[in-house]
């Protein structure tokens, strides 16, 4: 089949800004995007720069943006995507070295900053660690991360907030926080409770959508928020919002955005910064009523929230189980 590739190219040392270059090649139906790009490089334009290695979605080298979103070129079958013209760009949120090759150094540095290795409380046991099956099974998805950078490329929060540690590092952090053998969970979570940590995620699901290995970084970030709150780290806007949300829905069955905001932000200064927005809304008759409407069955909703809370599973940690004399 004939395929048109529209590739965003740039050599920052020579070009002022990126430019688009079109390539037309004939390829078999079964070709992946990576196959086609390699054919272009070998037969049409040897100056096209890209990274790749295993060609079978194991190594994570060929991350790039395909039709606007991050993907592994070797996992993208041309017959599955729009054949009018496929746009190919370097991954986002990373500096371009040349064409489709990006500088991954900031990416690795963020990953190293979370201490991506096991920190047990004591020396390893003589034989293997003994843990219940279900305390490890849920880590299956997250240990599959191949560190391709797709999630970081499409992270909305990172696009406006460079200090955000980002989805790859946070998914890795979860991998240790939730590992029953790691004992540094409180320290890890305390670090992620500050600026650039879990509360800077904007919950947009981009990382979940583009991850080629179903790591679901955002779900891990939400799980860490929950762990923090369960540990009592509740003096921040995010935790205050979550608790206020539960309380408002428990009281009225529905949300009241004004009250939620007032109970989530810290201090008068922050509240004042929202006051102009509130006044404008008031002027347009858009502020929610002073006394929120209560749905029929609100008490039942409160009961559900309370009973569900009592069913929350307890986390298993090897060192705690040892201290308490519990065997796995």
């Amino acid at each position, binding site marked *: 089949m004939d395929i048109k590739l529209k590739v965003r190219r740039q050599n920052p040392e020579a070009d002022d800004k990126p430019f688009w270059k079109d390539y037309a090649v004939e390829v078999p139906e079964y070709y992946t995007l990576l196959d086609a790009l390699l054919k272009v490089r070998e037969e049409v334009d040897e100056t096209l720069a890209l990274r790749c290695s295993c060609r079978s979605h194991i190594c994570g080298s060929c991350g790039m943006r395909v039709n606007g979103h991050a993907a592994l070129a070797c996992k993208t079958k041309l017959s599955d995507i729009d054949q009018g013209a496929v746009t190919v760009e370097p991954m986002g949120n990373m500096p371009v070295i040349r064409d489709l090759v990006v500088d991954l150094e900031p990416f690795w540095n963020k990953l190293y900053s979370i201490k991506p290795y096991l920190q047990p409380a004591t020396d390893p046991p003589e034989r293997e660690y003994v843990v219940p099956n279900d305390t490890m099974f849920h880590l299956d998805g997250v240990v599959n991360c191949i560190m391709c950078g797709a999630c970081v490329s499409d992270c909305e929060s990172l696009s406006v907030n460079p200090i955000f540690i980002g989805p790859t590092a946070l998914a890795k952090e979860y991998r240790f926080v939730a590992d029953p053998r790691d004992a540094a969970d409180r320290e890890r979570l305390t670090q992620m409770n500050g600026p650039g940590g879990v*509360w800077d995620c*904007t*919950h947009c699901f981009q990382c*979940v959508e583009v991850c080629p290995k179903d790591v679901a970084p955002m779900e891990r970030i939400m799980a860490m928020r*929950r762990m923090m709150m369960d540990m009592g780290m509740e003096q921040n806007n995010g935790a205050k919002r979550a608790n206020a949300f539960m309380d408002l829905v428990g009281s009225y069955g529905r949300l009241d955005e004004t009250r939620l905001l007032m109970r989530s932000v810290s201090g008068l200064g922050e509240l004042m910064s929202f006051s102009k927005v509130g006044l404008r809304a008031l002027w347009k008759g*858009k502020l929610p009523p002073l006394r929120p409407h209560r749905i029929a*069955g609100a008490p039942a*909703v409160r009961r559900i929230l309370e009973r569900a809370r009592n069913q929350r599973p307890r986390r298993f940690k090897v060192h705690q189980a040892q201290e308490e004399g519990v065997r796995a």
Partner: protein
Amino acid sequence: MKYAFYPGCVAKGGTPELYQAMTAVGEKLGLELHELTGAACTGAGVITERDPFAGDVVNSRTFAMAEQLGLPVMTICSTCTGVMMGVKGRVDAHDDYRERVNQLLADEDLHYSGQTDVKHLLWVLVEDLGLDKLKAMVVNPLQGMRLAPFYGCYVVRPSKDVDPLRLGRMGYLEKVIEALGAEPVEEYRGKDKCCGFPLLETNRRGSLALTGKRLAEARDAGADALVTPCPLCHLNLDGQQPETPEAGRVDAMPVMHLPQAIGLAIGITPERLGLHRHIIDTKKILAKVAVAG
């Protein structure tokens, strides 16, 4: 076409014009909407963040109420839709888990069988009503208007939850805009990106930067206005627009709720659609279309 109508908290709170517009549009399109007045908030992802099981039960309660009526749920909020579809993904497929959920619903004699369908108005327009029928009802084509689609994350992601049959739901908004006689701004890069709303309390600067970015992308693509099926996006794109970094230096960008855009095209007055209740003036839009008196 009958639906168990779930308006969501924001349509009855911070964006009352959405509820107002939907009521008028529903009537004219012949959608019979039975409002679930006893249904609770979906949690907008925050209940799930605090306690996933609680989130699943509260939403299953809504599905059970719709089941009692024998109707599918219709929403008008991307966030409500996404949360509900996520819950369905977990609850529908696993009988044991659903039984645990149902134990907490028994107090109110509710039971969820795992069958309730959930559809955003946007999906109803394309899949149930049909674009041809919508087109036939247009009396004031929004000709000459370039409308940028703004989906709101949760109605398009994760796609395995919100478009499990791969119907191409990411793409519906452009089709609806076209059916209304306007020109969808296809090259608008912000269409499936984040409006910044979920960061509002935890990182306001980041939140407003995202909002500003989406508005700038719309301006750069030559849009006259944005159209969104999500009132939470509207709270940021319209309500917080004057607070964004670029505000005051560039032209304001009006933001319409999806039912308002439909309403204008099918001959409902701007007044009834609540277009005067926006923070960013919508006169610019109204000047462009020959609006019904």
